[in-house]
């Protein structure tokens, strides 16, 4: 307790120096929290937009889909998807169940044929899925409007430009059917879309499930997407659906959203590396700043250290005193950093700043910074740990200090 008291009070001997150190810690760590907050927002946004546009929370496949290579499209598709969908819709927490099939083939305007990447979708449900996460889903409106009247598609903007077609024009889709024959179908282009990736837009064709069924000559679907009311429930629902399938002898495999999106993990890893690098730099600055403060303090208090040692304080106790000084610097600095980071983050959020689209993307996005205990607490702990270690190193000088020399220090 005495050494805690000594450590704490010693902080206020050189108020200006302590203040400067605290400013360095607060500004450095506060800015780190800001960076982490923004990264967390981007990661969260990417996660939720991936779920609410590409993967859903869970995907259900025929188990054979993963066990055997398909020789023909939909060879291992879900044939009983309507029954499964109906059962899943009864489950609490399930918001949406929809079918999807990916297909590939050639698209032609009569003069030019190019390869396409097709997504067979249920347009109403695709719109509904996107509307769950800050999106209008308006890109599916044309499909919804025309799919009952005629066979129609939406093309990626790049693909439409490549084929020189516009909404209202007709194109031909060619692909293999589920039984291996070659099939073609004329479809009307009802709209063009920007998916967010300019590369994908050069190949993208969205086609209603009914039309795709005709093209592929099959009523199977590749997979079912299950969307929940909360991403946090993914694991619980995974267990529940797996258990339900086992009990009902359905040969299906359930995959969670994060098992189906490599891009999300790559981006996350990229952000992790950037944030890690910034963290290392900032904590090195904090380390040297604190170390310098404690070193100056030790030099100035050499005679006092000599006095403490001469009255029977052990060297370990003396080092402990400086470690406590570092601890308090860390605690105060850490708390100030959290306050600074929190206020700054909320300040930035309230300004509604819009940033240009990231490379490869098309849409602007709003600068937003998250304030979450999940990274505030670890950063606080690391700040305290760094200041303790950075005060221990100069304090080790005490172990080499001769009492007589220390007492004679001017």
């Amino acid at each position, binding site marked *: 307790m*005495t050494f805690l*008291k*000594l450590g704490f*009070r*010693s902080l*206020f*001997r050189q108020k200006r120096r302590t203040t400067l150190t605290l400013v360095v810690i607060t500004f450095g760590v506060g800015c780190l929290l800001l960076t982490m907050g923004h990264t967390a927002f981007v990661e969260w946004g990417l996660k939720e937009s991936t779920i609410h546009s590409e993967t859903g929370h869970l995907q259900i496949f025929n188990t054979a889909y993963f066990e055997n290579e398909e020789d023909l499209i939909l060879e291992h598709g879900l044939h009983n998807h309507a029954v499964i969908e109906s059962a899943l819709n009864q489950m609490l927490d399930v918001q949406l169940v929809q079918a999807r099939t990916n297909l590939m083939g050639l698209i032609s305007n009569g003069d030019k044929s190019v390869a396409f990447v097709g997504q067979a979708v249920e347009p109403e449900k695709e719109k509904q899925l996107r509307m769950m996460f800050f999106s209008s889903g308006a890109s599916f409106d044309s499909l919804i409007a025309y799919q009952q009247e005629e066979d129609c598609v939406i093309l990626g903007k790049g693909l439409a430009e490549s084929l020189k077609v516009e909404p209202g024009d007709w194109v031909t889709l060619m692909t293999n059917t589920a039984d291996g024959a070659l099939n073609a179908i004329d479809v009307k282009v009802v709209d063009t879309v920007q998916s967010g990736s300019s590369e994908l837009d050069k190949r993208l064709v969205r086609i209603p499930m009914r039309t795709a069924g005709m093209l592929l000559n099959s009523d199977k679907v590749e997979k079912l997407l299950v969307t929940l009311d909360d991403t946090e429930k993914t694991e619980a629902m995974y267990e529940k659906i797996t258990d339900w399938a086992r009990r009902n002898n359905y040969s299906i495999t359930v995959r969670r959203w994060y098992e189906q999106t490599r891009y999300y993990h790559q981006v996350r890893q990229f952000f992790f590396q950037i944030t890690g690098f910034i963290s290392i730099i900032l904590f090195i600055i904090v380390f040297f700043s604190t170390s310098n403060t404690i070193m100056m303090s030790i030099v100035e208090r050499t*005679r*006092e250290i*000599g*006095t*403490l*040692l*001469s*009255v*029977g*304080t*052990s*060297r370990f*106790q003396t080092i402990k005193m400086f470690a406590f000084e570092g601890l308090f610097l860390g605690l105060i600095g850490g708390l100030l950093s959290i306050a600074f980071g929190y206020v700054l983050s909320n300040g930035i959020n309230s300004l509604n700043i819009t940033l240009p689209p990231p490379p490869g993307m098309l849409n602007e996005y709003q600068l937003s910074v998250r304030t979450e205990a999940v990274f505030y607490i670890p950063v606080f702990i690391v700040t305290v740990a760094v200041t303790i270690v950075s005060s221990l190193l100069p304090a080790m000088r005490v172990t080499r200090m*001769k*009492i*007589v020399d220390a*007492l004679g220090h001017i």
Partner: protein
Amino acid sequence: MRYAQIRFEQVSKSYKLGKTDIPALRNVSLEVHKGDFLVIAGPSGSGKTTLLNLIGLIDRPDSGTITLGDTTVSNGAFASASALRRDRLGYVFQTFNLIPVLNVYENVEYPLILQGVEKYRRKELVHQMLKKTGLYSRMKHKPRELSGGQRQRVSIARAVVKNPDIVLADEPTANLDSGTGKEILSLMQELNEEGITFVFSSHDPVIIEKGRRVVKLHDGCIQTIEEREEQQ
């Protein structure tokens, strides 16, 4: 036969100045007895402070043996010196050396905390000592708020509160005016009469006169040891 609280046998100590060895003490043999009021006198550079440092176990001899009570602490056996300093020795410094962030009460209490004395007992002992040294009304003051004489009283109280075998004082009145110096000396004499052993250095003839035993050093050697029991 009087009990020797500390015994020096053929103790030598030298310091290095560049590549030259400067002898500070040469083959000094000395005993400090319980209840002594011993003054180490001599001109500057005679080895007074070195002798005090060695008695106080804050420096190591090059050769010879130092025995504190029944414990021989020379010949590299300094590992336990910290505990001996904590439990059996008290220090009064020429420049007071109080801990500036602690108030008077806390400064005096500090050695008792190191010894692990219970809080209620510490309070009792510190209050007793502050009353004895006339600092009771100043117990909440920080050292910077005290005069030189008051600071030295705190230093003495800090040294004596743990009831050590010996209190060492290096020129305790050197930084004080003559009147305050006399007051400090009187306080030390009073405490000595209560049984505390004092060993202190001085080159002030007025102070030296008050010693019951005076060890005169010259060039690191003991020149004379005068016994002045009659002054009591």
